[in-house]
């Protein structure tokens, strides 16, 4: 009898789980439009069902009384390795196999993993995901970062559902590093790396032509050799190029123009020196919030150049200057924790970035840069319900986060565990 009663009770509770969520009478910062001083946000099936004042709350919705609270779109880390295990991507030689012989030229496709998709490897139990969510982040662009062509990144939501539910967009772009990575053989210099990338895009054009010609009339033709490296490039919607110093920014702007590929720059600590160049190029950029500091173990007697000092003093003024010049930008954690990243954003705000521009760079701008602004990045009807509910300013010194909503699922902020920042090799 007792068992039956419990069963009935349990069934009743199950039946009453609301399918919707409503945040009533809160201040709503939509980012895409005006700030609504007192409005209701309705959420159903993981999406924003409606936003506006005087909306009726459906009977089957959980209700959050939003009086005194602010609703923001969830924050976005525009370039990270969230959801990947500690070991950076890229294929490692299988156990027992000898390491590959040194590459002798571009034909050997050195340090190339362009076909690998990080979406295939993402896992939700990366402890950094929960920490980021606790700080108000609901999405991240996660990219492999090992190799000249490191592979295809993805836009993922920072929920705790199974990984396949978290991916918003894949592939989101090809991650390029202009480093040597300690490899032997070709390329052994920056000019070699650039020559390799240039040759790959020439090869890609040729590969497409050869395949098309063969498909049209295969009889009597030698079939083109399958090239996974070029297949990976062919499906890359955009290229992510590192550019930190003025020289690098100038170089990559010229190079991407030559490649005729859509590109996004990342790094940008000397962006304050390159605002005119960036404005003229009209290329979106991702600014690392890991502002340069003097190395802790630097010789205290070492003489630094004025230029190096100036870079340290002014790097954080870059976002404000980009906003003034109409350059589209987003922020990346660059290996920092979410809390450190937001501290970096606040430093940029102290150096001239307005709060509205900072918020946009953490929400709608990254969504636009990665081509997903039609589904996320702002509080609009029909978009994915990724929200942060706070008391007080989200970007203030001590944000008080009440709820974080990812794909319509409500999370209470955890007591943030001390998660050491994973070492990232983003350059």
């Amino acid at each position, binding site marked *: 009898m007792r068992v039956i009663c419990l069963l009935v009770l349990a069934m009743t509770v199950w039946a009453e789980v609301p399918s919707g969520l409503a945040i009533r009478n809160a201040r709503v910062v939509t980012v895409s439009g005006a700030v609504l001083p007192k409005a209701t946000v309705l959420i159903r099936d993981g999406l924003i069902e409606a936003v506006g004042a005087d909306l009726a709350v459906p009977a089957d919705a959980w209700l959050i009384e939003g009086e005194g609270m602010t609703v923001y779109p969830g924050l976005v880390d525009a370039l990270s390795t969230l959801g990947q295990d500690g070991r950076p991507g890229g294929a490692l030689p299988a156990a027992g196999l000898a390491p590959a012989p040194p590459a002798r030229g571009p034909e050997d496709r050195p340090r190339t993993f362009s076909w690998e998709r990080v979406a295939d490897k993402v896992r939700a139990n990366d402890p950094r995901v929960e920490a980021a969510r606790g700080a108000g982040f609901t999405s991240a662009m996660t990219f492999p970062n090992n190799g000249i062509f490191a592979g295809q990144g993805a836009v993922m939501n920072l929920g705790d559902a199974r990984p396949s539910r978290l991916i918003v967009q894949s592939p989101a772009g090809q991650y390029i590093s202009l480093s040597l990575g300690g490899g032997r053989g*070709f390329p052994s*210099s*920056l000019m070699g790396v650039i020559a390799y990338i240039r040759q790959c895009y020439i090869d890609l054009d040729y590969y497409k032509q050869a395949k098309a010609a063969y498909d049209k009339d295969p009889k009597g033709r030698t079939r083109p050799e399958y090239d996974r490296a070029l297949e990976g490039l062919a499906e890359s919607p955009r290229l992510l190029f590192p550019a930190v*110093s003025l020289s690098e920014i100038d170089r990559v702007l010229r190079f991407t123009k030559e490649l005729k590929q859509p590109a996004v720059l990342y790094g940008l600590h000397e962006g304050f020196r390159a605002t005119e160049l960036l404005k003229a190029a009209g290329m979106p950029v991702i600014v690392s919030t890991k502002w340069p*500091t003097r190395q802790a173990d630097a010789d205290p007697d070492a003489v630094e150049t004025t230029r190096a000092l100036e870079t340290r003093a002014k790097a954080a003024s870059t976002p404000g200057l980009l906003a003034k010049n109409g350059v589209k930008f987003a922020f990346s954690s660059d290996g920092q924790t979410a809390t450190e990243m937001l501290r970096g954003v606040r430093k940029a705000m102290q150096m001239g970035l307005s709060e509205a521009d900072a918020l946009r760079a953490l929400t709608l701008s990254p969504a636009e840069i990665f081509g997903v602004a039609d589904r996320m990045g702002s509080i609009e009807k029909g978009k994915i319900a990724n929200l942060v509910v706070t008391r007080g300013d989200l970007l203030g010194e001590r944000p008080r986060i009440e709820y974080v909503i990812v794909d319509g699922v409500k999370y209470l902020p955890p007591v943030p565990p001390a998660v050491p920042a994973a070492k990232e090799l983003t350059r």
Partner: protein
Amino acid sequence: MKWILVLPAVLLAQESTVIQNATVYTATKSAFVGSVAFTGGKITAVGGKIIVPPGAKIVDGTGLHVSPGIIDSHSHIAVQGFGVNEGSVSVSSMVRITDVIDSEDIAIYRALAGGVTTANILHGSANAIGGNNQLIKMRWGVTAGELMMEGGTKSIKFALGENPKRQGNPTPQSGGVARYPATRMGVEDIYRQAFTETRAYQKAKADFKAGKTTMAPRTDLKLEALAEVLEGTRLVHCHAYRGDEMLMMMRVAEEFGFRLATFQHVQEGYKIAKEMAAHGVAGAGFSDWWGYKMEVADGIPFNMAVMTKKGVLAGVNSDDAGLMRRLNTEAAKAMRYGGLTEEQALALVTLNPAKQMKVDHLIGSIEAGKSADLVIWNKPPLSSYAVPQKVYIDGKLYFERDKDMSDRGRRAAAKKALEDQLKQEAPAEQKKGGVPGRRGPASEGTAQ
């Protein structure tokens, strides 16, 4: 009538400058006291007496000396990114110095302060066939894209001797892997192989163009550059010391039907000057230093003078950011050793390198129509007391010694202010190391 009205408007739009009453060294004829006028980046008039355009800015050159900007045909400054060699392969003609120019290298400003206005930035000498070079002008303060010389010729670096064969022997650094070749014979073989491959590539392209094949060959950047060498549209600047190797290189070039532009370093040029003149290759090297390794043992300070007298187009260059700043005195040594005239000696670092790089229609001497790349010196330019006072590139003043000196106090104060500001912010920042603003020295000289 209309014509008369338009002309002054053009002149007003582009400000003219006239350096008056200076001793002028044109690099083509003996020095004289007179004027140099320039408008819109080009020299418009030079002579003892010239017509001063209305509204021109007058620079009083009384007691001063004007020479063409110094041209360094062999430099490795302003290169970024893990060295100046793509040393993994013996044929690296796919790489371009153009891609890695660093406009922020302070060596550019220092070269400018030494009167250098143009330099050919070369790939290193680790490979038999190196990378493509880039001519830059010392326009300190602009971006890398704006440093590149307009109308500059394309060129590639070759290298003979010890350097390209050094990696033939496996070392711990090379991971126990040896790179072919290990001998001077092997270096020669590299050229034959590469150009044989290039000819086959050219033929495959020609066959496709003629409709003999259905698919063009894949565009190969490595062979494209070498095809340009065979076609004569890309100059070859070849690192070389020994006479026997230079003779080999000329024979190989003639076999494949092209001419070398220069031998760089060319320490034994005096031994084979007649053969060099017959091939038409120029000699670009140091003034009077040698013996820093075995294959350089036979250098002599008379090299430039001997080559000049035997009809070789000779030039002096630096291969070094420091030496680059006093190329004027390096050139002057050819007057002491070998008795070149003043004009001949000055031409070693101005007109001759311009000719060697096939840009003498643009730069290299003070002649109407050429770029206004000019140096105003306090003493005759070949004097060891000469110090550049003003340096113009394309008529624009890029260096002014007085201004540099008077600015030093202001710059020191600005630096102090930055240091103080950073010290105040330091406690919050001292937690972790970050990306330094600038990584390491950008340019590294290669082994000679």
